[in-house]
């Protein structure tokens, strides 16, 4: 099921389909490995609800929800048990 990265639920895995947006934000995402084909996992929300933390290739990244809205992902598998 395709959805925006910002809507991905906690502990769920997804594959990146497309990175929309433009300019510095998109460029930074590309430099950090947020490109089509990469698999990511939603790790947590910050205590105030924004930004979010994702895991990509064993590395932890944070981005704001408004930035995550520019990334289209496809969910893979079910929820994985994230140890809390």
């Amino acid at each position, binding site marked *: 099921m395709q959805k925006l990265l910002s809507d991905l639920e906690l502990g769920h895995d997804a594959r990146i389909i497309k990175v929309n947006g433009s*300019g510095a934000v998109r*460029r930074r995402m*590309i430099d950090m490995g947020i490109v089509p084909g990469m698999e990511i996992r939603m790790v*947590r929300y910050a205590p*105030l609800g*924004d930004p979010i*933390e994702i895991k990509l290739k*064993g590395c932890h990244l*944070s*981005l704001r929800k408004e930035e995550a809205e520019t990334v289209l992902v496809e969910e893979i598998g079910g929820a994985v048990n994230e140890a809390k």
Partner: protein
Amino acid sequence: MKPNKLNIALAGNPNSGKTTLFNALTGARQHVGNYPGVTVEKKEGRLRYKDFDINIIDLPGTYGLTAYSPDELVARNVLIEEDLDLVVNVVDASNLERNLYLTMQLKELEIPMILVANMADYAEANGVYIDYELLAKLLGFPVIRVVATKGEGIEELLDTVIKGEVKVNLQKAVRYSMEIEEAIIRIEKHLNPSLEDGAATDERTLPFAQYPSRWLAIKLLEYDKEAWKKVEATPYTYELLKQAETEQTYFKNNLGDDLENLIAEGRYAYIRGATQEAVKVTETNKISTTEKIDNILLHRFFGLPIFLFIMWSLFQLTFALGNPMVEWLEDIVAESSVAVGNALPPGLLNSLLADGIIGGVGGVLVFLPVILLLFLGIAILEASGYMSRAAFLMDKIMHKVGLHGKSFVPMLIGFGCSIPAIMATRTLENPKDRLVTMLVTPLMSCGAKLPVYTLLIAAFFPNEIAGNILFSIYLIGIILALVMAKLFRTWLVPGESEPFVMELPVYRTPKVKSVLIQMWERAFLYLRKAGTIILAFSIVIWALFTFPMVDVNGMEYANPSEQMENSYAGRLGKTIEPVLAPIGFDWKTGVALVAGFAAKEIVVSTMGTLYSMSDTDSLLEGEEKQVKSFAQMTREQSGFTPLTAYVLMLFTLIYVPCMATIAVIKNETNSWRWPAFTIGYTVTLAWIISFVAYRGGLLLGLGI
């Protein structure tokens, strides 16, 4: 290659351990400066190895080489413009795929390169195994296993560096899809018409000799702003740029995505190809230590309280350890001032040295222990990896006022002292965010303003509300800082805010050497300022208070109070009295405020002198008897009311930061424009807020 002399650059992502390697290679033989025109730190170091003199440039840590951030642009310009023999690209071995993206961009610059797979021990412990030989063969340059913290692999690296056998291997360049490759060739032909069959002479070649033509072609297709600007400014490039635009439109319309994305995907595809062959990853499902720590430190409920506790501890430690040292230094300064005063015959030189220079510069230098400890704390927080977590926790609030989560920590440090706070804004990548953070940080009430508050509160307010009064001053400072940040970010330096896309690096135990080097670098920059700008300010302020020494008849004044009244500073105070009258201050307060530019705590001692107090030193130490007499004197002589006292506290909170802060802002922004602006806006704001408070207070009948 020059015989026995090598010039190399270190490039790599932040958190790749690049600085650790740089420190391991050069030790203390480092030089820190700034790149011309920008406030990006330029670090260079020297190393002697087997008859070779090696100069190492430590480039800013970056994820890419685009034109979007000053750090990346600086790194890129060094790579293109400096005469480099080699680039050493440091990558995090456990994070190869992502780190190699920068490597691909370095590779396109066609400079001989060595890849350092750093922190290999950590990678291996986490199930990542690299076939170094195979990876080197696939990428076309040497790959060396290094553990910089333990010194493993450094000798092999240096041997490879001095052997001079590393060459650019164009056969192994990143290959893109056929469509992109064809587009690159079409652009290259415009750049270098001699590539065309039977083409013209070399005179038609465009003057971009310092850039590899394939690199420039790719940059134009990616619509890289800097490259585009440079080409646009060159004659006879109309056709070329038109071609590039045609390609961009074609790809967008026919291949579903724009070229910038497609080229990036091409690089990642190339990386994936290489790493799939040469890197074996044993998936471990165990939760890493970093994840365990983050489950606590970034916890939904406990994350923020823990963060605040860490910040609180930083302050407690800094001041608990620092204050005794500050007091000790204050004694030394006072003693040497007296010693110099006694050693020299009375006169101008004596007064200049004892009061002006030792008193002025010394008064700023005594804070060095506190500043060093704060720098040490910041360096540890940065090196451990917690700093980006702090930004993660606070970003929502900071983003609301147009800033970045990383702005929070410098602003918080502003409660201690504005100097390390302003220097701590170096962690901000976006120059606009950084500037605004610097401009509003002085509104966070610093430690030196506290004596002013405590004295005025003790003198004018009953004990029961003293705490609330003090708290309200701090709170007003925070609110003003946030409001001004929002205003500045909206009107003064509008523009896209810094993306928050960033790495939450693996937690590491900070290395003593790295932390101390960083602390020392910052402290050294501060000390150098103390010797120049602060010295100059001290002399000017001393002169304002010292001259003229005699009245119109050539007679000396009866007492210090009268002398001060007739000095230039005193006259200045009287000149500005009409401006201060609407907010309830007389000329004496004006003089005290002028003196406060040297350091805020001087406001109180100057008032003491003006009101002919006997012992102003004990006043600063807050001795009860003196505080009482201070209140009495002020009441009797100035008609101060609690309202006036409160307004004076407000004014002290907001108006001009001290001269040391101004000097640091000048240093960090590389111009006098922003320190001047800071003085202008803070004085205006102080007056407006004081006016509102004073007049409002009078209306409410508080001015009794």
